[in-house]
């Protein structure tokens, strides 16, 4: 017995491995699902997968507990108690679908806009929007408006592609990486993989964030900026670089509208617009001839220093306007330092480091390429400075312009789409003009006149009714926020409740927990959902909701479609939607039922296929009115958007066609055999300079991203913005309401500007309050997970050292946090690595009692809390009595992070406040 003999080590084996796509978050990694005795036994990353390359995050690894969570819905539900009581009766699918059909068919016939269909972090937007469009309602959007539309819109308007998960730093080559306002991002695993690569190479990582956790904790340098002031910091960096001439003139001249000529006549209706020729082509001065020529003329030497008189109006290149604006002492480091909470010296050092790295450490890749003007380049010039950013920039009311400023900085340094810089992932880049414009023309009994969402280029593209009132329930693409490319889901409930701009009949929601963590003003939202009119009828007459789990929102709906878990259904991660590509590869993927559901639940998309057919929607029924697709899997394979182009790009035609090809009946099996995804590499000579690279443009057409090459130049000067300004100045037919003129003039500036994004008074509310995503938790839906909730079961409010001392806080203390809108009482904890004017907590840990299959005394429901109670979708009334929405005036992006608060110590509390009665009594 005393001998060193080891017992036999068992070697686990599984019965089978099935490869599909994770959906514990929207990153959509590839997973190997191992089965034992027909049950899911272990989930690990798929090594071949383009997104995660084998790794898996905490959430992904905990998928098995999501799949077995007691909170899973079991059957369709019909509300039997009052709304919000959580009292339901299980019904059959036939009854559920018939009820929905009975509700919706009359709406379609008479007034399709009485249906508001909003989907949350939907990964099937190209399909759900297809349903909404064919239904004929203009009232459709997904979650982008409250998420990060500022980032997407600023990127696309400026450079035809964005951060978010649509681009990526050149992890292989960059030497200096600046991360602005990111805690986790959608691109969870790729960012971590990338940071790991930088660390391995010893590249420098710089975190610009009020809070130093996670990515910012591993950053070599941390700039603990005061929230909402990044725009100032960035413009100051630009100021320093311009003064030092540390900008990439070649790049600016060749690939951006820096040389394009701007109309300078204040009296002209085209003042501030760009000079074009008859064909509408942008004009630049050729340094060789001194004459204006189209920007894409072969052999042109764009002049940045000249000026030009045209029809008696003087025109100067964009770059001169840039210099004029940002060389101003208003942007000197000394002028911004205090507001940013970063010393002038550090701002200068950062600018100098940028200059040093971008220019002194520039390098070349030996890859010859040809640009769209036909000029041949022997090498690819690299600038090893990369940047990335997300909601820390975008979730502010000045986020659009701040993101524009950031892109301006990148572009001045010549680091977009070059080796070492920021790279687009296919199907981006795509010029803003290549995106659809919003459509809102309603015809009873017929589809909408086109896609709902898109990119406006001026007042003519707004979604307004003939009387000038907003055409959409969320007032997207109205003068309040003209460039709201993703819609404004966060305004839907409050507008529907108020009947402003009009009343709707049925609110149809899909995977968005609007009665809790998705909404600002949570308590008020619950009240609006249950509010009744003078007849005792609900102000929002009908609510249909599709969820997989017993979320807070479930209790506020009248009819529930229970969805499956992500391991039990077909799904399509399509290039028509939010793709999963990497800079060097185009890719799409599927989910498929790796196990069958053990409950009476159905994949939501299949339910829509059925409902669409019952309603007789075009695209869902054939000419004889017969159901076109049996289910979503059938749609995924056989639906064609354009001839030969469908939801899935891989294995088309005979199975070898990529991008374009006839539907292939074996397509899904081919995906399954290939590990659940399809991937095609970008040819080597097409990997950088994509917007201007002929090889890339040709390949993109082959892949069906678009139908003909469409090279373009970056918009440092944004004309669409200027067109709205012109309207506000009184030009043009479509005019904004007077109360919005000043805002539009100030904030829709064609060059990036910074403005204070909240008018909350600093003496009353001295602190900024933020949330961050915990890496091991996904919004509300991670808390039902037995493993993840042990990691993040409660969330204290983190308080910076000086405030901690000032208020005499000690471990275990509680505090009351007050904003202009409300008050919460919560536990506090000390943090030193924090901006001294900022408090924060983890997002969405707090839960309503009775939801998510948790006991009512679960810590999430007793100690956990939401900051959402302190945030309102409408700001307090101004002196003129108007209530402005708490969002970016350009895009309508919800300004979650403009929250300002004050803090006071309270005695120890048994529970966080406010306290709501438990939801319950679900049959």
């Amino acid at each position, binding site marked *: *017995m*005393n001998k060193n003999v080891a017992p036999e080590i068992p070697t686990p084996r599984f019965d089978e491995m099935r490869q599909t796509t994770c959906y514990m978050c929207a990153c959509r990694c590839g997973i190997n699902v191992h089965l034992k005795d027909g049950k899911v036994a272990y989930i690990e990353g798929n090594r071949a997968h383009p997104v995660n390359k084998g790794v898996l995050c905490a959430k992904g690894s905990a998928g098995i507990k999501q799949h077995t969570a007691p909170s899973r819905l079991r059957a369709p539900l019909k509300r039997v108690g009052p709304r919000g009581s959580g009292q339901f009766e299980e019904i059959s699918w036939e009854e559920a679908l018939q009820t929905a059909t009975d509700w919706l068919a009359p709406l379609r016939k008479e007034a399709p806009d009485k249906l508001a269909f909003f989907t949350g972090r939907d990964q099937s937007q190209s399909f759900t929007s297809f349903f909404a469009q064919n239904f004929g309602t203009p009232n459709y959007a997904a979650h982008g408006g409250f998420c990060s539309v500022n980032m997407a819109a600023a990127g696309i308007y400026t450079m035809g592609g964005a951060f978010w998960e649509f681009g990526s730093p050149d992890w292989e080559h960059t030497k200096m990486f600046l991360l602005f306002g990111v805690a986790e991002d959608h691109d969870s695993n790729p960012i971590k993989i990338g940071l790991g690569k930088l660390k391995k190479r010893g590249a420098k990582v710089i975190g610009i964030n009020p809070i130093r956790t996670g990515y910012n904790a591993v950053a070599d340098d941390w700039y603990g900026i005061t929230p909402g002031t990044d725009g100032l910091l960035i413009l100051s960096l630009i100021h320093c670089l311009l003064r030092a001439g540390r900008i990439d003139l070649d790049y600016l001249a060749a690939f951006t509208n820096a040389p394009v000529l701007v109309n300078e006549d204040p009296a002209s209706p085209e003042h501030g617009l760009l000079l074009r020729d008859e064909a509408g082509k942008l004009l630049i001065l050729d340094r060789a001839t001194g004459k204006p020529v189209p920007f894409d003329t072969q052999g042109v030497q764009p002049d940045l220093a000249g000026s030009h008189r045209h029809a008696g109006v003087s025109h100067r290149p964009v770059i001169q306007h840039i210099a004029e604006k940002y060389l101003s002492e208003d942007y000197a480091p000394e002028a911004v330092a205090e507001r940013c909470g970063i010393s002038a010296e550090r701002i200068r050092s950062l600018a100098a480091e940028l200059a040093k790295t971008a220019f002194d450490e520039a390098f070349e890749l030996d890859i010859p390429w040809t640009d769209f003007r036909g000029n041949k380049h022997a090498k690819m010039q690299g600038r090893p400075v990369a940047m990335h950013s997300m909601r820390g920039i975008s979730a502010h009311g000045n986020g659009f312009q701040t993101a524009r400023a950031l892109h301006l900085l990148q572009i001045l340094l010549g680091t977009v789409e070059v080796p070492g810089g920021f790279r687009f992932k296919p199907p981006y880049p795509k010029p803003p003009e290549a995106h659809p414009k919003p459509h809102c023309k309603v015809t009873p009994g017929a589809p909408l006149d086109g896609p709902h969402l898109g990119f406006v280029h001026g007042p003519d593209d707004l979604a307004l009714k003939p009387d000038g009132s907003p055409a959409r329930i969320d007032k997207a693409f109205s003068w309040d926020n003209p460039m709201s490319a993703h819609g404004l889901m966060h305004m839907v409930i409050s507008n529907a409740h108020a009947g402003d701009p009009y009343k709707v009949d049925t609110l149809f929601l899909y995977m968005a927990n609007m009665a809790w963590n998705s909404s600002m003003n949570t308590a008020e939202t619950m009240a609006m959902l249950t509010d009744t009119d003078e007849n005792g009828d609900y102000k929002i007459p009908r609510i249909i909701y599709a969820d997989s789990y017993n979320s807070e929102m479930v209790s506020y709906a009248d009819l529930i479609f229970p969805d499956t878990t992500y391991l039990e259904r077909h799904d399509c991660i399509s290039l028509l939607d939010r793709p999963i590509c990497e800079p060097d590869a185009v890719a799409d993927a599927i989910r498929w039922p790796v196990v069958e559901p053990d409950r009476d639940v159905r994949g939501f998309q299949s339910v829509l296929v059925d409902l669409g057919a019952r309603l007789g929607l075009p695209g869902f029924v054939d000419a004889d009115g017969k159901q076109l697709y049996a289910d979503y899997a059938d749609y995924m394979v056989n639906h064609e958007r354009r001839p030969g182009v469908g939801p899935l790009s891989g294995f088309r035609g005979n199975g070898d066609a990529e991008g374009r090809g006839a539907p292939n009946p074996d397509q899904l099996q081919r995906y399954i055999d290939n590990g659940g995804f399809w991937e095609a590499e970008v040819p080597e000579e097409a990997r950088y300079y994509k917007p201007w690279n002929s090889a890339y443009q040709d390949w993109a057409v082959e892949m069906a991203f678009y139908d003909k090459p469409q090279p373009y130049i970056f918009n440092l000067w944004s004309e669409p913005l200027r067109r709205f300004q012109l309207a506000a100045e009184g030009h043009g037919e479509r005019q904004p309401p007077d109360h919005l003129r000043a805002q539009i003039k100030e904030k829709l500036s064609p060059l990036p500007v910074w403005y204070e994004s909240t008018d909350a008074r600093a003496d009353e509310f001295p602190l900024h309050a933020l949330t961050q995503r915990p890496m091991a938790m996904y919004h509300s839906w991670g808390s039902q997970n037995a493993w993840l909730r*042990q*990691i993040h*079961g*409660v969330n204290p409010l983190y308080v910076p050292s000086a405030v901690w001392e000032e208020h005499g806080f000690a471990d275990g203390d509680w505090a009351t946090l007050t904003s202009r809108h409300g008050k919460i009482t919560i536990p506090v904890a000390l943090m*030193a690595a924090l901006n001294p004017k900022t408090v924060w907590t983890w997002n969405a840990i707090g839960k309503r009692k009775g939801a998510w299959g948790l006991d009512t005394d679960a810590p999430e429901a007793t100690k956990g809390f939401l900051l959402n109670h302190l945030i309102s979708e409408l700001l307090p009334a101004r002196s003129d009595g108007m209530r402005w929405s708490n969002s970016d005036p350009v895009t309508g992006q919800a300004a979650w992070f403009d929250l300002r608060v004050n803090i006071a110590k309270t005695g120890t509390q048994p529970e966080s406040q406010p306290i709501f009665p438990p939801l319950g009594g679900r049959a």
Partner: protein
Amino acid sequence: MHPAKSVILFTSLSGIGFGLLIWLGLGIPKAVGWVGFVYYALAFALSVGGLVASTFHLGNPQRAWRAFTQWKTSWLSREAVLAVAALTIMGLHGAAAVFLGYQPAFLGLLGAALCLATVLATAMIYTQLKTVPRWNQPATPVLFGLLSLGGGALLAGHITTALWLLAGIGLVQVWAWMAGDKAFSGGATSLSSATGLGAQVRAFEPPHTGGNYLMREMVYEVGRKHAMKLRAIALGLMAVLPLVLILLNDKHLVVGLAVISHFAGVLVARWLFFAEAEHVVGLYYGRDQNAASAA
């Protein structure tokens, strides 16, 4: 450390039981026949009862026999082996006393030695742990030994010896506390050595908001004021009160009271022995190393 009832009971009861056996083995008092039966039965009840209690905290008591195998390295295994040996020898010794009417001296000496060794082995289980600086000091085995002998002497009615031992217990207990209070803060292990992150390190967020075995078992906190009160009670009941009682009057009844007082005091002291012991793992969980030394 979490003061588990079963372990407190086991160490206290068995300590006194083995103490009584030691004295019986030495032939003090001469206890044969029925009287012998009462003494031996009491001693066995305490020591065996303690051993049985100790299995209550095991996750898998059905495999307890395996604990006899690792005497070469493990103090816990040694304790088990020694306990069985001691009980076997003293069982024979007791049988001779009860049935044959005499206490074989050699067997008694051997048994007494084994009993003392058992008690010291028990003490060494704790003393050996570098991870619990408060225990990892010479006072621990001395105190365990004295408590066993003292409690045993009280039960054995060996009053004079008991008086000296009680005085010794009081002194050593105070020594153990004083040395123990300095052990953690004065030791080399700190959050800095635990993390290698330098002197200015502070625990931030815990790894899990849900608790775990380590925190339940090893990160037990007892308030300083509360601990001081309990120390006074323990010392009073365990040493001072019995001493005073016996010095005042050595009648059976009073000695009985002294035994009860002593025993209650030992339980309190043993509770503190665990509750006040800080495990170095607490550092990882943000336990303040210097908070302990303030006691």
